[in-house]
């Protein structure tokens, strides 16, 4: 009886909901659910594979749910030990790079947004131009290795990721929302520009710092490109994602090459070990991201407006 009343009430509330709305909504739930499942399936398969017995993988291929569950792959990665050094390196690069990059980007963003700063247009253009025209990979590679001598140096990974013109423009857009009166009031109190920036502006930029800091941190955590350019086999500890790249691709290269025929396949990492590496390299960012997602969303929406 109570149920019937509730149904009546709900149908009463929905009286304006026409057939077309129901079609759209019904289709929406089905489509979005399907799409979300597609997004998550590859991750489930990777995790499953990392827990599956190697023999089973060889015989039956990778499965959606783990079969013959074993921790063998993780034990092997832990025994190898190399991945912990990669973790340490990646964490150090991420923390140092994010802190340094964030300091520079926020200072620059504030200065370039100050109305009374006569050089703001010139410097803004100087920075923006770098996104319009670039020298390309070969001149960059030659400069980094032959002029700066950064081959096999961690600085070749740390420095290029510190900032981008896009991040500075993003910061300028955040600063724009802070009223100029704040700066004026600081001036009246006799504070210098640096003092105004540190004690008045920075506290108001917290959401911006969180957003841009996360973009920077994600860049460092996922970095593999600069490593692939500048860190040769002489460097034993490499950033996490590039270590993963090497683990996975070396095996395939060995298998595909003619020489591979003489390589003992049991000696090289197997499917489950590769996937265990992948899970370990990605785990932290996936665990963290539901909590930081909102900062990314604010960054994307603010960044979509031009600088």
């Amino acid at each position, binding site marked *: 009886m109570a149920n019937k009343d509730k149904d009546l009430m709900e149908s009463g509330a929905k009286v304006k909901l026409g057939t077309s709305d129901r079609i759209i909504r019904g289709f929406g739930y089905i489509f979005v659910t399907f799409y979300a499942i597609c997004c998550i399936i590859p991750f489930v398969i990777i995790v499953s594979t990392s827990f599956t017995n190697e023999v089973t993988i060889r015989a039956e291929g990778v499965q959606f749910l783990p079969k013959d569950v074993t921790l063998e792959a993780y034990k092997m990665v832990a025994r190898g030990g190399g991945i912990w050094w990669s973790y340490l390196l990646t964490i150090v690069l991420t923390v140092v790079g994010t802190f340094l990059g964030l300091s520079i980007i926020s200072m620059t963003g504030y200065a370039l947004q100050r109305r009374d700063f006569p050089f703001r247009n010139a410097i803004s253009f100087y920075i923006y131009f770098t996104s319009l025209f670039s*020298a390309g990979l070969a001149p960059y590679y030659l400069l980094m290795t032959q002029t700066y001598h950064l081959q096999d140096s961690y600085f070749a990974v740390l420095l290029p990721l510190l900032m981008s013109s896009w991040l500075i423009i993003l910061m300028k857009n955040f600063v724009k929302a802070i009223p100029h009166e704040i700066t004026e009031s600081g001036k009246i109190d006799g504070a210098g520009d640096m003092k105004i920036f540190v004690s008045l502006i920075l506290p108001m930029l917290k959401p911006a710092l969180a957003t841009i800091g996360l973009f920077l941190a994600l860049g460092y955590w996922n970095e593999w490109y600069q490593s692939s350019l500048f860190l040769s086999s002489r460097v034993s500890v490499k950033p996490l994602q590039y270590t993963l790249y090497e683990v996975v691709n070396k095996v395939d290269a060995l298998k595909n090459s003619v020489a591979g025929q003489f390589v003992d396949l049991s000696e090289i990492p197997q499917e489950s070990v590769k996937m265990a590496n992948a899970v370990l390299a990605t785990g932290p960012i996936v665990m963290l991201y539901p909590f930081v997602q909102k900062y990314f969303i604010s960054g994307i929406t603010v960044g979509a407006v031009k600088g």
Partner: protein
Amino acid sequence: MKKRKSELTFWQKVVRYKTLLLMCVPAVVFFFMFNYMPLPGIWVAFVKYNYRDGIFGSKFVGLQNFEFLATSGKLLDLTKNTILYNIAFILLGNFLAVFVAILLNEMQSKMFKKVSQTIMFLPYFISQVLVGILVFNLLNYDTGFVNGILTSLGLEKWQPYSDPNVWPVLLVIIYLWQQTGYNSVVYFASIMGIDGEMMEAAKVDGANGFQRIRYIILPSLKPTIVILLLFALGGIVKGNFGLFYNIVGTNPILYDTTDIIETYVYRATMTDFNFMTASAVGLYQSVIGFVIVMVVNYIVKKIEPDYSLF
């Protein structure tokens, strides 16, 4: 009495605004070191480079490095691949993003909206290396997930890694998989910004769901769509290196349909150490890209100054 800003000489301005200038110095030095310093190195595209003499000591050969690229059709092939992939990415990417954003907006369950958005965003957070691994894990011949299903159904195994023709479709799907969560955020935000009263009024006037989408939501998304398409058009000769390199890698069988400017330049630099060819292709790409941005911006400025990039 302080002088007005416009009356100051250059050096007086420097002195008065020294703190703000100093705040910009690290960034200015950074872009000088990593973006301006490589520019003179473009010269390597015009010489016969050897290590001993360096870029500026090597023999000048004019356009010789470009000649082979142009006459062999290599440059044209690379440009074609790069642009066609980008067109597919841009059009389908934006279409799907708008589509998903509109559907999300129609959902009533807040919980469902939140969870599905979080899941759709997930592929954006992972490294391109992992994307390559995910794809390989699904598609490889020996142990791939797809082939496991095909085998259990009694069907023949599929070998995408030796079939160049399937990759244009696969790469577009993978791109959409990775980017749609991200792309739909901007559209979703602009739908949320639509005046709620207008929507209510439309409902009261008896507009059905399709009509609201057609006459209110889509028109109010138009500026955002146009801006994002223009941004994308400016980068139409820039390829998504991470995606292509991690998925296709160095598998020559697939080059016909998957080699873009970036992957070619990377191999020329890092595998062949052929800095002349790499630099020639890179310069060609930069110049074309620059011209396209300028033309797009010029046209936009004429039609709708508010949308122009600069």
